[in-house]
């Protein structure tokens, strides 16, 4: 009795294979390769997202008790003064992050992109290096720099402008936000500068030469050549900085000694979420805050993309 021979076929690389084995692996292999990601994403992404959405409709008291309340958490949130404080603080921080940090980053990038600038590599490393440190480390470092009476910031400002040595940056509600913004500037200006620098280096030099021939001065070249050339990166940096600012947590948490600071001056939305969920134990309300944050950030990002033209592909 003759045994059935496996059917032979030739693949794209000209290798002969048995057809059943080839067909099987041809069909299954892609799923096999994406399955680790899918399993992990479903377990640690989709499930928690779904669970948190469900939780946002419950009032939870500790880990075991949950009562369905429909939209009550959302209604409560809208009249919650602490949530309002958190949103306001976060928005203020985001505003200063965008309107101080990005121009500074761009300025530094322009400086380092100048052909007459000496020691660019060293300066690039110096400006970027704060970002190599974690937020926790930076938080500890600046909480020491900002201490009253003996801190370097106060000593310097006392010498420079005569401000009182016992100025309490982290214990005065009016000074907490400036301290956080300053710290954040130190940490992230260099990071965003790298993006701008890469974008600047990609702008065609011929355009500058043509502009010079046409009689455009440096300022007009910046508006007419540089800015349009770096627009896609600028939009990206703008959106990412805004999202990052709305996720602010570690820096104030460390600098303000695991608290929201005096008069909740350092309370951010993520910090409020953490306090509500893991300190007060109300996971349902924390989920509501989390979903509101996610929707808020999404809307702001879409708005920014629309305003900057990226939504219509204008940033490409």
């Amino acid at each position, binding site marked *: 009795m003759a045994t059935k021979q496996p059917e032979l076929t030739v693949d794209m690389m000209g290798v002969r294979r048995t057809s059943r084995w080839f067909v099987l692996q041809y069909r299954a292999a892609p799923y096999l*390769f994406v399955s680790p990601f899918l399993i992990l994403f479903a377990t640690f992404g989709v499930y928690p997202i779904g669970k948190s959405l469900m939780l946002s409709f419950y009032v939870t008291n500790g880990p075991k008790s949950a009562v369905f309340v429909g939209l009550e958490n959302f209604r409560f949130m809208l009249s919650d003064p602490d949530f309002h404080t958190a949103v306001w603080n976060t928005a203020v921080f985001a505003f200063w992050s965008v309107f101080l940090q990005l121009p500074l980053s761009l300025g530094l990038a322009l400086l380092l992109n100048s052909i007459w600038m000496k020691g660019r590599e060293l300066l690039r490393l110096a400006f970027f290096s704060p970002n190599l440190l974690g937020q926790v480390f930076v938080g500890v470092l600046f909480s020491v720099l900002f201490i009253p009476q003996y801190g370097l910031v106060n000593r310097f400002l006392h010498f420079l402008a005569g401000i009182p040595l016992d100025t309490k940056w982290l214990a005065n509600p009016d000074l907490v936000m400036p301290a956080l913004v300053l710290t954040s500037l130190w940490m992230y200006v260099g990071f965003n500068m790298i993006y701008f620098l890469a974008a600047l280096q990609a702008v065609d030099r011929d355009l500058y030469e043509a502009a010079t021939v046409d009689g455009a001065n440096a300022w007009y070249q910046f508006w007419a050549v540089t800015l349009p050339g770096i627009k896609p990166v600028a939009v990206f940096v703008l959106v990412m900085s805004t999202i990052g600012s709305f996720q602010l947590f570690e820096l104030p948490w460390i600098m303000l000694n695991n608290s929201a600071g005096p008069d909740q001056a350092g309370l951010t939305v993520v910090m409020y979420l953490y306090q509500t*969920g*893991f300190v007060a134990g109300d996971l349902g309300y924390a989920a509501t805050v989390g979903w509101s944050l996610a929707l808020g950030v999404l809307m702001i990002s879409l708005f920014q993309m629309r305003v900057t033209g990226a939504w219509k592909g204008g940033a490409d």
Partner: protein
Amino acid sequence: MRFPYGSAALSMLVLSVLSGVWLALNPVKKPEATLVMWTFAKTHYDAYKQALPAFEKKHPGVKVDLQLVSWQAVTSRLQAAFLSDLDVPDLVEVEISAAGSFFRGPLKDVGFRDLTDRIKESGLYDRMVQARFAPYTSRGRIFGLPHDVHPVMIAYRRDLFEQLGIDPNTIKTWDDFIRVGRKVTIPGKRYMLELPDSESSRFEPLLYQRGGGLFDPEGNCTMDNEIAVETMLFYVPLVAGPNRIASDLGGGQIFTKAVEDGYFLCMIAPDWRSKTIEVDVPKMKGKMALMPLPAVSPGGRRTSTWGGTMIGITRHCKNPDLAWELALHLYLNKEDLAQRFRDTNILPPLKEAWDHPAYNEPRPYWSNQPLGKMYAELAPHVPFQYTSPFVTTAKGKLSEALVACVQYYRSYGERGFEEFVRKRLKQSADEVRRLMRRNPY
């Protein structure tokens, strides 16, 4: 046979299969402990490590896995463990300000076991300072055994007091204290007392001293009652305005420098903080001393309380009797407690333990004062400190009210101050009550 997606993909596949198989064949070994216990204080951890061999010897075959968990992390880790029912310890030490948040929801759903009957039946309720059960009690049920009493005294620079001609024995009331403080305070250079103007950690002991608190025994928010108003009216002028005698710079190295420089003459010092001062400001050995807290009025209470820890047995614990025995072993052994007092300065709540000679030993750092005896004499007068699941929120709201009152006082002084204090405290209390009303249980 060639792999159709290239050698790189094949390498990744082989690597993932091999590592998966290796992990499956070599699972992480869980410590084979009979009881798992978490503590957040390094000093407790070191002391318990020494005490555990005796317990394990007494119970052959029993192994206790003691874990040191950062105090910042212990609350969130425990909440997460309760939620997931994974890696829940059998016993946990919880800091007083976090304890209340674990008592949320119906009693049957509290993550800790109800220890009321065990405590009452064993006579511990009478043998320990009763006030210290209050912070770990919810709706009349006790969920934790107190680790400490934490009576409060005033630590002061004895050498500077002598130089300035201050006799601590003449300071019996806060009025006496303020009178002296106004004489010796030099704004920006020297203050009579270390007190913060931006958070309520030291406001609370002064509130308790007057018999007030954030909550009453039934869990009602009381942070805007008459005692709270009186305390705020007393506290704010100490830290703000032209006659202030108190300031605050922060903890750690700056505190060390401030004490060494004589920036502060006095500090609120519960027993645990006396050890912190010893460790953080070693150069002041022999130059420091302690005195009772000044009374609100002549003959009044000369102490208060600040801080605390409980040990609780979780519902997850499969052997609660053994866990209870371990808790008693760690909290009641007189010799261990005496040694622990020598190491940490923390007075245990077990009254009969205070007879041990360790509590009478003179302490060179504190100008040879018998630290234990002094704290023990005050311990029976420590005020009750009631809690609620909303205690962390209430503390935050009290801090907010304090900051607002300080800002008002700086701007307007005494003009309309009392009315503002009442209004601001009520606003904070109402926010807490609003959250409490949301509670459907």
